[in-house]
């Protein structure tokens, strides 16, 4: 009951303090909006220059009528097939001018299709895939592979690869279009023909979905530790904490009161984070909200313990903020939020395993992205529970110390 009085007192004071109230409500919103909008986008309207010298004609041997010339226009097909959102295509005639523009930084890439491009592509397709039939005039003819090697000039790409993100977007965009057009010419050239792929989640998980759980965990770390440590430091410097501890209330009851209040606030904020990120950015969330709540409660209770310890060492609110940065920045880097843990050098791994965000992130990811339940995250849940219990215990001890050193 006395803990409840502490809880109610904290909530009442926050409720009356409009600035803190707005901060509590807006920080998660601000976080998720900023994050969602800056990470959900992909490169768009990349300027590339095309020089199409392809005459569109291919000369092939036939079994029936000797050598014939077909109008293929393969370069044109590729150009028209390019992703209109990804590329802003400019066509010019001078190949040297096109390359020069890339070199001068005026455009990301230049592609030059040579005159005999269609001819070279068709004959290469026949050489790899063997003969096939087509209609020529009114009759069906068999196209034969070339007798000599057809190493005719292929298209050339000049690429400004100073930005890796954009480089891979351009290469990916070009490759998929070229593959699609070539597959129309010759099945054997398409990777799909040799590799049967089954995507468990239908290829629907974006990088944004993958990083969202970690970002939510990070936001909770920031908000919870900041709010808790500042509240405690403020109570101590104002002397109210001393007054509370002179009353017949045990340190564990005070700690419990604090924890209840801040866990309530954390749950409200997580709800807000999830609501906005699913409604606005359609973040993938296929698991059970109840398990997300369990993860968040264990995680934030542990964080509050850290915050309480932090406030024992911090003389004032400013120092508390400084300590907070020391905690936050490494946790963002080592916890596998952006890069998978597998990509961390072995020397860094112990740091990752020491960071509670690692476990919160993994558990949230499993629940949100793949819909796993408690049996698949039992390890992460137990680590987080242990973290919460230990930190809460230390918080109670340090609360007692705050009383003695006040």
């Amino acid at each position, binding site marked *: 009951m006395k803990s409840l*009085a502490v809880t109610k007192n904290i909530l009442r004071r926050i409720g009356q303090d409009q600035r803190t109230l707005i901060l509590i409500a807006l920080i998660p919103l601000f976080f998720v909006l900023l994050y969602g909008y800056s990470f959900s986008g992909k490169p768009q309207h990349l300027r590339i220059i095309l020089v199409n010298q392809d005459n569109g004609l291919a000369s092939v041997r036939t079994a029936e009528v000797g050598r014939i010339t077909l109008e293929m226009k393969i370069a044109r097909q590729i150009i028209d097939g390019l992703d209109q959102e990804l590329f802003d295509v400019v066509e010019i005639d001078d190949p040297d001018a096109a390359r020069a523009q890339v070199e001068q930084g005026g455009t990301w890439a230049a592609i030059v299709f040579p005159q005999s491009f269609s001819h070279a592509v068709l004959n290469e397709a026949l050489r790899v895939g063997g003969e096939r039939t087509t209609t020529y005039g009114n009759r069906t003819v068999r196209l034969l592979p070339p007798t000599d090697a057809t190493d005719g000039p292929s298209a050339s790409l000049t690429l400004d690869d100073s930005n890796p993100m954009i480089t891979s977007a351009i290469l990916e965009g070009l490759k998929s279009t070229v593959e699609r057009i070539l597959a129309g010419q010759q099945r054997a050239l398409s990777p799909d023909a040799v590799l049967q792929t089954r995507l468990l989640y239908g290829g629907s998980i974006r990088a944004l979905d993958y990083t969202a759980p970690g970002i939510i965990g990070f936001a909770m770390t920031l908000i919870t530790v900041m709010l808790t440590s500042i509240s405690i430091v403020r109570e101590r410097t104002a002397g109210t904490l*001393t007054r*509370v*501890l*002179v009353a017949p209330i045990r340190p564990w009851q005070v700690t419990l009161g604090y924890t209840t209040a801040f866990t309530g606030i954390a749950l409200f904020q997580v709800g807000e984070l999830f609501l906005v990120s699913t409604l606005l950015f359609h973040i993938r969330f296929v698991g059970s909200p109840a398990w997300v709540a369990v993860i968040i409660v264990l995680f934030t209770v542990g964080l509050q313990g850290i915050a309480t310890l932090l406030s024992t060492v911090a003389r004032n609110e400013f120092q508390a903020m400084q300590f907070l940065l020391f905690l936050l920045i490494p946790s963002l880097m080592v916890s596998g939020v952006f890069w998978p843990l597998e990509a961390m050098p072995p020397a860094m791994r112990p740091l990752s395993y020491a960071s509670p965000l690692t476990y919160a992130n993994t558990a949230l990811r499993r629940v949100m992205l793949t819909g796993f339940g408690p049996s698949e995250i039992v390890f992460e849940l137990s680590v987080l529970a242990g973290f919460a219990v230990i930190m809460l215990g230390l918080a109670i001890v340090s609360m007692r110390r705050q009383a*003695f050193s*006040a």
Partner: protein
Amino acid sequence: MDRVLHVTGLRKSFKGRQALSGVDLTVPRGRVFGLLGPNGAGKSTLIRILCGLLRPDAGEAYILGWRVPNARIQSQIGYMPQETALYDDLTVDQNLRFFGELYDLPRSGIRERSRELLEFVQMTDRGDQRLGTLSGGMQRRVSLAVSLLHKPRLLFLDEPTSGVDPRLRRTLWDHFARLAEEDVTVLVTTHLIEEAVRCDMLAVLSQGRLLVQGTADEIRRQTGTDDLEDAMIALQEGEAAE
């Protein structure tokens, strides 16, 4: 029980600096007992030990027969710290209610007691005001009211009049005297002689040691002086000569 507070051989040091070096003290019931001494004499340390906020290195302290620290003592003592130590952003009533709840007082009891106390500190009708909007003197009186909520039998006042104008100081001391009449024992620290004369009994603390204790008359007699100020000077000179 006539001895509300009894202390023997209390020692406490912080990082090698002795704050209390063997203090013996006995406080009788229903008196205003002054703990007199210059800044840094160890008065606050002594009060914090007695309130259960600090653990002594050695020695024993008993309050109402229980050895400190003891959870049962906490509901019998009141503590008014040097600073206001209340929530600026809450109203006077909300402050009173919160601390009342910590003492497990029933809701209706808190309301009644708050009204009574605000009347006692002459702040009736101020209950709805936010503490931060009140003057420093008024905040000090609310602070006294809060420390009296649960009708403590022993009240610790740590420099209750520091930074207070003379008129309020007189009012506060009138309050203390009235509390003693109502059988509340008041232990008050001060470094002012003019306040010391208003105490029923005194103890003089200097550099962590208790130099003398008794009524003002007794102290004058012991030091062979005519007034308390001379007595203080004599005591300090005697200490310096040691």
